[in-house]
């Protein structure tokens, strides 16, 4: 008998507040992969903004809250490379030398995954429920790519949909200019980088740019629209993988 994996979905605050259908798509995908999904109701933020800005106290408090909410799950999965990266790589850094909390942070880190990475590497999902058809280009978001090695996993999943044609853009691995708080601290530079990224997206000729982090989605979509591009879709990979035909 195949054992059901109990997966806690770390929705992430951006998904919750800006595009909740990505969270629902993530549930569908995890269930398709045979997981039992739990979504702790009181969850909020992984603490990244505080961590990246030197507000360790807030980041630490949020990390403790998240650890408490998710540690009874077998796995923790987030539809975001940067939030998964925060839990997996940086939570332990918030509790240096603190025996019990450090141990709990490390234990949680071990079982935390980015969504596509989890679906491919751990769950070994056989088929995807979506039926998207059209040309797409894939943007590799910084944290997922560089902290977690998310690169082939989303592409492998997208390949499972026969209607999709992947047209890789130039410099797919280059930052879109969002960079979390970077976009706030250095807005002008961020905007120029977003412009370059959007030029690359448009040069690819794809009808949609697909990616795995909502921060980058907001940045890229916002810039495309301000450039007058109302056509190019900006989609989270989970949306595409659950696309209703």
């Amino acid at each position, binding site marked *: 008998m195949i054992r059901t994996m109990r997966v806690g979905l770390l929705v992430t605050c951006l998904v919750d507040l800006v595009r909740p259908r990505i969270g629902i798509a993530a549930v569908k995908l995890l269930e398709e992969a045979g997981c039992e999904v739990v979504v702790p109701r009181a969850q909020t933020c992984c603490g990244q903004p505080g961590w990246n800005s030197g507000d360790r106290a807030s980041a630490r408090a949020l990390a403790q809250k998240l650890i408490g909410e998710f540690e009874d799950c077998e796995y923790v999965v987030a539809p975001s490379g940067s939030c998964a990266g925060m839990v997996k790589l940086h939570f332990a850094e918030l509790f240096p030398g603190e025996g019990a909390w450090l141990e709990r942070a490390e234990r949680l880190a071990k079982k935390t995954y980015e969504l596509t990475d989890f679906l491919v590497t751990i769950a070994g999902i056989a088929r995807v429920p979506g039926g998207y058809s059209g040309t797409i280009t894939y943007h590799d978001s910084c944290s997922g790519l560089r902290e977690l090695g998310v690169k082939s996993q989303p592409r492998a999943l997208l390949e499972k949909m026969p209607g999709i044609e992947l047209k890789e853009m130039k410099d797919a691995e280059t*930052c879109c*200019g969002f960079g979390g708080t970077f976009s706030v601290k250095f807005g*002008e*530079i961020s905007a*120029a*980088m977003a412009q370059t990224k959007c030029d690359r997206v448009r040069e690819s000729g794809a009808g949609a740019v697909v990616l795995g982090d909502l921060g980058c989605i907001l940045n890229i979509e916002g810039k495309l629209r301000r450039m007058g591009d109302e056509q190019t879709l900006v989609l989270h990979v989970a949306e595409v993988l659950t696309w209703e035909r």
Partner: protein
Amino acid sequence: VQVASIHFKRRASEALRDERLQSTMKRFGGGFAEKRTAARTAFGASAFEDLRSASASIRDRALEHLDAWLLRFEEEATRRGTTVLWAESGDEACRHVLEICARHGLKKAIKSKSMLSEEAGLNERLAAAGVQPVETDLGEYILQLADEPPSHIIAPAIHKDLAQVSELFEKHHARPRTDDIARLTREARETLRPHFLGADLGIFRCQFPRRRNRLGRDRHERRQRPHVHDAAARARRDHRHRESDSDARGPVDAEPGPAALGDRTGHRELLLDPHRTEARGDADGPEHMYVVLVDNGRTRLVGSELKEMLRCIRCGACMNHCPVFHTIGGHAYGWVYPGRWARY
């Protein structure tokens, strides 16, 4: 160069509005990163990473006993007739060089590329003291004509386009304008030749004081043999006089690889000891050889949480891969090294 990092936002903003710079930087974006990837693949990705880790640990080991290595270098170099001078700051390094110039009555200094001399503001100090510095790295030479600091540590004039170089050469060389790169390069060589022949002093960065305490540098940095060599050696580079040649080879091989140049420098040379009349001297060596070991804040990082910064081999790969650098260019950072270096 005055440290102007505090004005980063304003300078970045200006760079974003500079259309010519923007168009030049867009062209820069392509090439370097791809070449690095190709070089890494050709070398073997895991062998490449092994070489990087090996180089890093050589650095780390040397830094742990930096004081001992430096003293050993001084002792051996002194025994061979080289004068070793120590400089706490860039200012002190400049004063050493000026004293050397005064002592030997030197009026023209020929230089190979040295970020350390940029950091110390050596050219300005030499000029003020009546010693003419002449840059011989093509990029640095272009910038000397333009009176600008480098914008990238291995490609100093990357922010200049062809037309800008043509204009500079036309103005300074008093020759008909050309946009042909081969002709421009020849023009630079022909202009620099008399400087090489007439220089009293050669200044270059020392890449790796090393085994038997000779100074190593890459072949492409060799231009001529002046009367006095003054190796502007960074204190932290002094780790390379290691027990075996294989140790010295690691970081040297690793340097151009990460920098995305693909081909490694084909030839390295060990500098000769100064010429001496007694049997042990090198007949072809310079009349005098000085090494200035410059700290300028570096040893403060030894043993600190930022000590990994001292592993930097100045290959420039970070700039070649940085989308922020590509977007605003090197001058926006306000110092010879972009990023946080200026703060430490």
